[in-house]
């Protein structure tokens, strides 16, 4: 167990080797594939025993970052530390890490036992020690009855466990997991998610986990690193990411359904600061006005989560501004109802009480809980609100 640090790490994929480049240049001048900068100046500090989730859309560089920690990809520049040791020039086998691959990468010709024992055998562990560790891990993952099976005789979930087992028996300093649950069906994924959480609590080993699924990130991570286009957008606890997204991208990525965005303008009126959207005007509550004066007059984007928009017949406590909107679609989910509504040019989703009787086509008053509002500069998409702030005292 130990911490992992990335300092100014970059990864540039050379489109082609120099020789190949010359070859291309010779045959198709001007068509030389250019290099791709997939990870840009990544700085990370993963604490000892922490479960850190790298999340982002595909192609954001999260897997590459993980593979650089593993040593499967070489960092183009920057330093990677595991514990006190700089590991840039250390081969994967000597980094004291274990990795779980998206497709599990189980050795097809070996049975479950051999798959788990392989790494230990290569490291010249004593046979009885290997046996003990493999059986312990198998017990922990409830696959003890499968030890003699070949991978092709296992279900997806079982293979996933074997892949985990192969990592566990090694007792490394760091676990690296590359979308380990993405090949499972939805139900199994939820179940394995819970087991992973339990496992991490039992083992307490530093874990770096890559996923594109924000729900996985939110539920598993002690902290989340959200990446986009090779750049770290925000690194914080799940709750902080949810409540204080640093920019519009983070705000839209985290949370389901996605945050509603309303383009508008920030205006000052009678000492109040208001957001003027196409269909309504909202006042920014006093506790969120800090530092907003300088942005008055600029284009902004208002962000409201569906669960912070209430029906006027089922109001929540606290200050809220009413917005009238036309209901376009009603989606009853049993425990709640999603209203797809339109106000002015903007369409948005509100999550309302399951007992709501709103019908399609109706115009309703929806209450926007302005304490939970988010404001982003239209030009930079960065958050305009001071975050993180101490939670305002509830009324």
């Amino acid at each position, binding site marked *: 167990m130990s911490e992992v640090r990335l300092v100014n790490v970059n990864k540039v994929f050379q489109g082609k080797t120099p020789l190949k480049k010359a070859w291309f240049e010779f045959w198709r001048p001007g068509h030389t594939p250019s290099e791709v900068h997939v990870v840009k100046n990544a700085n990370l500090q993963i604490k000892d025993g922490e479960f850190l989730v790298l999340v982002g859309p595909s192609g954001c560089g999260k897997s590459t970052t993980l593979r650089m920690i593993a040593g*499967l990809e070489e960092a183009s520049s920057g330093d990677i530390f595991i514990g006190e040791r700089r590991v840039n020039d250390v081969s*994967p086998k000597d980094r004291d890490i274990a990795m779980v691959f998206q*497709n599990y*990468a189980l050795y097809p010709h070996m049975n479950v036992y051999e798959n788990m024992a*392989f*790494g230990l055998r290569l490291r010249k562990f004593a046979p009885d020690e290997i046996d003990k560790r493999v059986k312990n891990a198998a017990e922990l993952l409830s696959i003890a009855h499968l030890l003699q099976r070949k991978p092709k005789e296992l279900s997806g979930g079982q293979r996933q466990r074997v892949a985990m087992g192969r990592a566990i028996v090694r007792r490394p300093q760091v676990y690296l997991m590359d979308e380990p649950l993405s090949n499972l069906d939805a139900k199994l994924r939820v179940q394995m998610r819970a087991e992973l959480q339990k496992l991490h609590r039992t083992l307490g080993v530093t874990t770096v986990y890559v996923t594109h699924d924000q729900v996985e990130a939110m539920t598993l991570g002690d902290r989340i690193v959200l990446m986009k286009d090779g750049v770290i957008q925000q690194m914080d606890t799940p709750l902080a990411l949810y409540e204080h997204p640093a920019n519009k991208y983070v705000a839209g990525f985290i949370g389901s359904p996605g945050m509603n965005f309303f383009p508008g303008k920030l205006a000052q009126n009678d000492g109040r600061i208001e957001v003027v959207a196409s269909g309504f005007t909202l006042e920014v509550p006093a506790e969120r006005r800090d530092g907003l004066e300088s942005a008055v007059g600029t284009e902004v984007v208002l962000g409201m989560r569906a669960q912070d928009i209430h029906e006027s017949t089922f109001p929540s406590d606290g200050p809220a501004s009413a917005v009238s909107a036309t209901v376009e679609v009603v989606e009853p989910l049993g425990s709640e109802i999603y209203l797809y509504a339109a106000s002015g040019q903007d369409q948005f989703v509100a999550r309302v009480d399951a007992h709501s009787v709103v019908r399609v086509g109706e115009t309703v008053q929806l209450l926007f809980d302005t304490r939970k509002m988010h404001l982003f500069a239209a030009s930079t998409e960065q958050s305009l609100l001071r975050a993180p702030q101490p939670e305002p005292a509830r009324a």
Partner: protein
Amino acid sequence: MQGRTEARIAWFFLLPSLVIILTMALLPILRSFYLSFFLKDLAVPQLGQPFVGLDNYLYILRDSRFWAALGNTFGFTFVSVLLETGLGLLLALMLNRAFTGRGLARAAILIPWAVPTVVSAQMWRWIYNDKVGVLNDLCLRLGVFTQPFPWLASIDTARAAIVVADVWKTTPFMALMLLAGLQMIDTSLYEAADVDGATAWQQFRHITLPLLTPVMTVAVLFRTLDAFRIFDLVYVLTSGAFGTETLSVLTADVTFKFNDYGQGSAYAVIMFGCIVAISYTFIKLLGADPNAEER
């Protein structure tokens, strides 16, 4: 009702290939089998075609020329397939790495395989020629010997010459088969092994080799059957002289040179038996059944 219609359509579509298999493969085999029990010597047609039972076979089994040819054939098959597999694996491993001009190399490597054997055999005959051959020329210039050496006219070198020519021609086939096998192996297995702590050699030994075995077995089976029937190369290079006669050459000799169709057929049947035995052994002992080791 519909099942029957479908079956009829299936038969209809299968018919052309069935006819071809029957007339081109099965009939000749049966005919050879039949002829092998008769005396049918076109050199002495007045004898007619009397039934002689197993005489043709008994004669062959007592003939030292047969045993020599059988030994040659097995020896040639073993040595050349072994060399081809080894070299083919080496080439495949090299071609499986990314390097500049790999596509070109892959295409170029197939050239020996694409050239008809008779043509390449003729080429090798010139290379080995004792007076004007390139090989002798090189050896003389490099001072290996002072006298040109008749490569195809002494037992050891003639055999080696045939093996070399065959290995040159068929290694590409092996390399290509094995390359296809290598490319079926998931690269993440190597990454997992990397993390697990396997060295390059251990990865080859514990991952590449076991996972390549099914493909390799099939490739070796193909090549073994092919090598066992070798005819054209031997025929062009030595015509079977200097201890290079193989079963195919002997069979052709007896049949078409001596016009002894009865005994020639017996030879053909013996070869057929050998090939069936080889295939059976492979499939049984080595598990060459391509469906057995699906991944």
